[in-house]
């Protein structure tokens, strides 16, 4: 293998706790991490190393499960097991809590901003997906509650350019939503995984979606035009099986290089490349690099830097986050 994944730095981000998720800001200069210690930490590069720039505490009473930056990079949203989502506003070098979004019955599992920055989606163990609208005065209003899943909703992600939302659930399915007459509706249900779907990632064009599951596979889904013009049509065009020893907790499709990274409960980080010779309807992905003991415990998240190609952040149950560089010689 000519490709390799080399460690740039390892940081103890949430000591004595889990690090659940990491997220790059849009300019790729900061990483936000969150964990079981109820804190959010913002990391920035100084010289060759990553140091903690600020700690966001007291926003949540329980675990902070995921964080997401707004497309402008001035806001950070955090989803917590305390059933709330907190919006933080960047002020100089620090962050202040702007507002708290309440309404979910129990744990909020994920939060995501639409590409326009005007919409925010949250999902919860209460089986629902909520879409919030943000106005110019920083006021948030819930515009829709969708109950298309029959179980705990694990993840939500927006299409990179359109107002199209996807969600993944404990009910093994993926739902895709679009606004229809002021109402958000599930326009497609993607069935195929045989256990919990933990994570989703669109490719740069938004025509394909990767999903990672407890069934230890990654599936690639592709959108097809529908003759009837009504419901959306997505089909599974590729399944990556046999690579992961345990649950696939996260997938990330690099918007710059098209390389796919996965985080798994077997402590490994893997990177897959698409074979260029194959057609769009039957793509083939092959393992380009893997680090089998990337962390000492489950890897929970993989995130590609949005500006610097090949720079990957990961985090783990061991409380660490790590930065890796993917090389192709």
């Amino acid at each position, binding site marked *: 293998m000519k490709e390799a994944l080399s460690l740039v730095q390892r940081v103890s981000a949430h000591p004595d706790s889990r690090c659940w998720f990491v997220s790059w800001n849009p300019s790729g200069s900061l990483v936000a991490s969150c964990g079981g210690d109820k804190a959010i930490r913002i990391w920035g590069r100084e010289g060759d190393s990553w140091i903690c720039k600020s700690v966001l505490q007291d926003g949540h009473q329980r675990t902070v499960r995921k964080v997401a930056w707004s497309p402008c990079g001035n806001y950070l949203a955090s989803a917590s097991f305390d059933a709330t989502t907190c919006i933080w506003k960047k002020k100089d070098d620090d962050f202040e809590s702007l507002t708290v979004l309440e309404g979910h019955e129990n744990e909020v599992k994920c939060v995501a901003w639409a590409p326009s920055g005007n919409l925010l989606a949250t999902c919860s163990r209460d089986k629902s997906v909520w879409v919030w609208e943000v106005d110019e005065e920083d006021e948030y209003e819930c515009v829709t509650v969708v109950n298309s899943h029959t179980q705990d909703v694990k993840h939500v992600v927006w299409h990179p350019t359109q107002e199209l939302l996807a969600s993944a659930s404990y009910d093994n399915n993926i739902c895709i939503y679009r606004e229809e007459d002021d109402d958000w509706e599930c326009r497609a249900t993607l069935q195929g995984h045989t256990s919990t779907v933990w994570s989703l990632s669109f490719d740069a064009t938004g025509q394909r979606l990767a999903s990672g599951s*407890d069934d230890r596979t990654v599936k690639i889904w592709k959108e097809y035009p529908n003759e009837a013009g009504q419901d959306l049509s997505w089909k599974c065009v590729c399944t990556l099986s046999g690579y992961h020893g*345990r649950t696939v907790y996260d997938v990330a499709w690099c918007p710059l290089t098209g390389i796919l990274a996965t985080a798994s*409960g077997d402590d490994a980080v893997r990177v897959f490349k698409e074979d260029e010779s194959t057609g769009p309807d039957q793509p083939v992905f092959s393992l380009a690099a893997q680090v089998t003991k990337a962390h000492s415990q489950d890897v929970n998240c993989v995130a590609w830097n949005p500006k610097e190609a090949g720079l990957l952040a990961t985090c783990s*149950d061991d409380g660490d986050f790590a930065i890796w560089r993917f090389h192709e010689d």
Partner: protein
Amino acid sequence: MSAGGRLENANPVIFQRSGERLLTASDEDEDVHDRIDDREIFDLIRSINDPEHPLSLEELNVVEQVRVKVNDAESSVGVEFTPTIPHCSMATLIGLSIKVKLLRSLPDRFKIDVQITPGTHASEEAVNKQLADKERVAAALENSSLLEVVNQCLTTRSMPDLICICQVVSLSVQSWYMNSCFCWTLMPQSKVDSSSENYIMII
């Protein structure tokens, strides 16, 4: 958790407890690296209390040494447990208690899988899926009342439990058994003040 005094399985079959682990010469040799073995894991979980009966999981045959599989080199532990009845509503709680006990006792490197013995429970798949979902387990353990019940299952049975039991009972050994079950089920709801007079009464 079933409230009140009705037991789901009123007359469980009680099994003999196994003896203590026999120590060999190499066990006591400090220079020999002891791998974690099945028996060690079994010893960690066999004295967990049943949520419904004043009996250990071993005495109810919910856990057995043959259903414990450890691979120290691969850092994996698999435990299968057998609910006393196929519709046992306590199955998730029992599985969670086993999982928590192992999470607290074993080094972090271990991957712990706790599952129902195949074919022994009506909701086997759903219970297994829930126990395998670390996010839901993490959220459950942040719930203080649930954590309290789990901790109760994990507490080594001691005098205060007996006292609670005997509160309800006139002290004949035989009725002790029956009524104690009743009392144990009430425990999570009605807490016994361990500083009260009842404490001394029995001792």
